[in-house]
């Protein structure tokens, strides 16, 4: 079944640790996105990719980095986690641009102590 997977679902980690949030999709979509969502707030785009070896920063400044070595895989890395990074991180993919249907994963809830 075509889907988009995020791991871990929940992560509690101490300040200064390096973390990688995983995102994989089985739909063969070229476009992938990382959004940040805080309670009661809008989704904010932090990274997007048009395809392999193509990554761009979104409108929300983020200290995270991403890579796109394979079409199906779009991991997000924080080199040194801080409490300000506490948030929900949502990965999404689409066949075309974001004006088309976005398929979202279930998200990773990150808590940095």
């Amino acid at each position, binding site marked *: 079944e075509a889907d*988009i997977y995020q791991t871990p679902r929940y992560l509690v980690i101490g300040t200064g640790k390096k973390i990688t949030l995983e995102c994989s999709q089985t739909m063969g979509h070229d*476009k992938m*996105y990382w959004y940040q969502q805080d309670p*009661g*707030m*809008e*989704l*904010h*785009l932090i990274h*997007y990719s*048009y395809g392999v070896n193509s990554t761009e920063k*979104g*409108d929300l400044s983020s200290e995270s980095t991403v890579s796109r070595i394979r079409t199906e895989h779009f991991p997000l890395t924080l080199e040194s986690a801080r409490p300000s990074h506490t948030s929900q991180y*949502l990965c*999404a993919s689409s066949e*075309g*641009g*974001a*004006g*088309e*249907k*976005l*398929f*979202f*994963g*279930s*998200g990773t*809830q990150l808590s940095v102590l």
Partner: protein
Amino acid sequence: QKEVEQDPGPLSVPEGAIVSLNCTYSNSAFQYFMWYRQYSRKGPELLMYTYSSGNKEDGRFTAQVDKSSKYISLFIRDSQPSDSATYLCAMSTDWGNYQLIWGAGTKLIIKP
């Protein structure tokens, strides 16, 4: 001022009621309008998609766009407890534009 405004709710209605959810926006260049539904601890899923002005119906759901008023609505008929979720509006200026502008979402509670 935010580009897209959405009442956060919660909006609590009895089962079977007609629900109206709304977003207002300030950028007249928006042409593509979407409604996403997000259940607790899940990612959003696309519910309705409309281009420019007009209505679009899909089962119990109707999406309405009024570009002259910069106002979009989602109507849910015969609401069910399973409709309880947060409803997010999103909009874009161009097809294929990676940048969607999102509302903050309205939490809807349908009471049995």
